[in-house]
């Protein structure tokens, strides 16, 4: 039950974050979508032992969090919550790849630990990029951008409907679960038959609600087509954003900035 309530809260919070008016939020959604995709592809294209070359890429999420006035702690927690899958797959690497790859002073690090660190770095970068995309754009704008970029309209409309009704139906599910919890004195988890009849009930309520929604739409003049009317104009700053960042990602992919800076520093110290 806490799970459902907290998920609802999370969705709502991300939604409110996307309503802010910052330079990030005012950018064209298509540009933000494409830049995020370019970022992910660049990060993911590194070989499995790269660590130092990935670190400069943190510039992108950090810059966007700053400009978009997004809460870094909250985003960091969400990334942590999503980490288990990558963590549990990545943790096999140190067990399987034991040849020493690099020496940190007296300590020798095996290839497995290096690739594990690389996996976790990649994970942090890509997931934060996705969260920043939605917190800095909002689902409505993302869907608009998707449609203008060529996604089938049916799919975009489906996404928008899904999003609206997630709130409605998770509240319904919360009511069901809460009612059942209040009526079970010891409440030791949900048994199978009770679970399936609850899901079945939820489904029937869903279908009845869909019927009511459809009738409501019909009586307001719905004729089968959804019209998305919001003119999107590409401005100079949008193009500059996209070109600038993708050029940077390409540059960072070719030249390891950490190495360059480290060498420069070492040269200065000497």
């Amino acid at each position, binding site marked *: 039950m806490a*799970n*459902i309530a907290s*998920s609802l809260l*999370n969705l709502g919070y*991300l939604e409110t974050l996307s309503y802010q008016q910052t330079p990030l939020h005012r950018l064209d959604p298509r540009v933000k979508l494409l830049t995020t*995709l370019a970022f*992910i*592809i660049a990060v*993911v294209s590194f070989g*499995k032992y790269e660590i130092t070359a990935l670190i400069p890429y943190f510039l992108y999420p950090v810059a966007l969090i700053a400009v978009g006035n997004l809460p870094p702690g909250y985003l960091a927690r*969400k990334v942590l*919550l*999503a980490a288990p*899958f990558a963590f549990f*797959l*990545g943790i*096999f690497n140190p067990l*399987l790849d034991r040849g020493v790859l690099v020496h940190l002073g007296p300590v020798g690090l095996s290839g497995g630990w290096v690739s594990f660190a*690389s*996996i976790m770095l*990649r*994970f942090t970068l*890509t*997931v934060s*990029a*996705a969260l920043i995309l*939605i917190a800095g754009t909002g689902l409505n704008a993302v869907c608009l951008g998707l449609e203008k970029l060529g996604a*089938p309209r*049916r*799919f975009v*409309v489906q996404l928008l*409907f*899904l999003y609206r*009704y*997630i709130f409605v*139906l*998770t509240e319904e*599910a919360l009511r*069901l679960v809460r009612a059942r919890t209040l009526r079970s004195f010891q409440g*030791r*988890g*949900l*048994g*199978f038959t009770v*679970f*399936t*009849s*609850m*899901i*079945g009930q*939820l*489904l*029937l309520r*869903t*279908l009845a609600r*869909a019927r009511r*929604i459809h009738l409501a739409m019909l009586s307001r003049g719905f*004729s*089968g087509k*959804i019209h998305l009317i919001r003119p999107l104009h590409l401005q100079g700053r949008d193009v500059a954003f996209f070109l600038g960042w993708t050029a940077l990602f390409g540059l960072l992919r070719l030249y390891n900035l950490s190495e360059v800076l480290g060498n420069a520093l070492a040269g200065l110290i000497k």
Partner: protein
Amino acid sequence: MHMADALISPAVGGAMWAASAGLTAYSAKKLKQDLDEHRVPLMGVLGAFIFAAQMINFTIPGTGSSGHLAGGMLLAILLGPAAAFLVMASVLTIQALFFGDGGLLALGCNIINMGGVACFIGYPLIYKKIVRQQPTPGRILLGTMVASILALQMGAFGVVLETRFSGISELPFSTFLLLMQPIHLAIGIVEGLITAAVVSFVWKAHPEILIQTPSVAAARVHSHKPLVLGLALFAVVAGGALSWFASTHPDGLEWAIKGVTGKEELEAPRAGAHGVLSRIQEKFSFLPDYDFKKPEGDAGEKEAKKEEGWPHVSRGRSLAGILGAAMTLLLAGLIGFGLRRYSSHQKG
């Protein structure tokens, strides 16, 4: 089971993205023909239902852990494959965007593994064949169990393949397979039971929801699908397993060359057009000699020593076999399709 971006390479991610984008476009197009406009809110609401249902966990007796519904099969039964695929794709998109559950680049992989397999393979090929037009509780149970188990096995296999091809995780193919498949067998059984129970519940309360209108089925006069699928399956089996039994003796030409020059292959000149083309071929062949690329040096020699014995069981060989068969099938299909279009153009 959601794949993360951290474990994927751009090639794999991009390829699966293209595949799922293609399937999405296909599903959207198929839905246009279906003029039921009450589907528009129904699809959205059912997607939200899946989302909500996934958050309700039940306890699995004896293990102390909890499970939940995945939903692809249930959606396919209620909406039909094309609509169900779009709904699953949208649910997975929301999960990736808002919860970081599955990466954005890996979204294509996840849509295929969890949506495409259940809606386009599990539902039409398994569930419908078992249930046909008489949804008795027994048939529903059997159909959903078999379909869910197989769909989840295939989805899990997809995850293993995608991880292996990306080369970021060190997990060897067989170990990962042995880890994923049994877990997803258990999940598939549970999923099948839940779906069957819910479908039976709905069948008892509102049976009209489950009866598919035969209008679309009547429109299709003669379907080549069973033949094509049979061929595809045979190609997979032949490429995958029978390739191990391929003879390791040199073939006719190599035997003849060996008789004449003492070696099985002729050395090609490294200069000129020959050299350029052979270098290009070396670069692009990702499965040279129908097997995985041999690592250089000591490891390569050790592996070469292991390469005796018949049947020559090799993952690379199976892979080469399956991929080769798939590409050939695709090419043949494209040529056939092209020829059909050309001949109908000629007539009309």
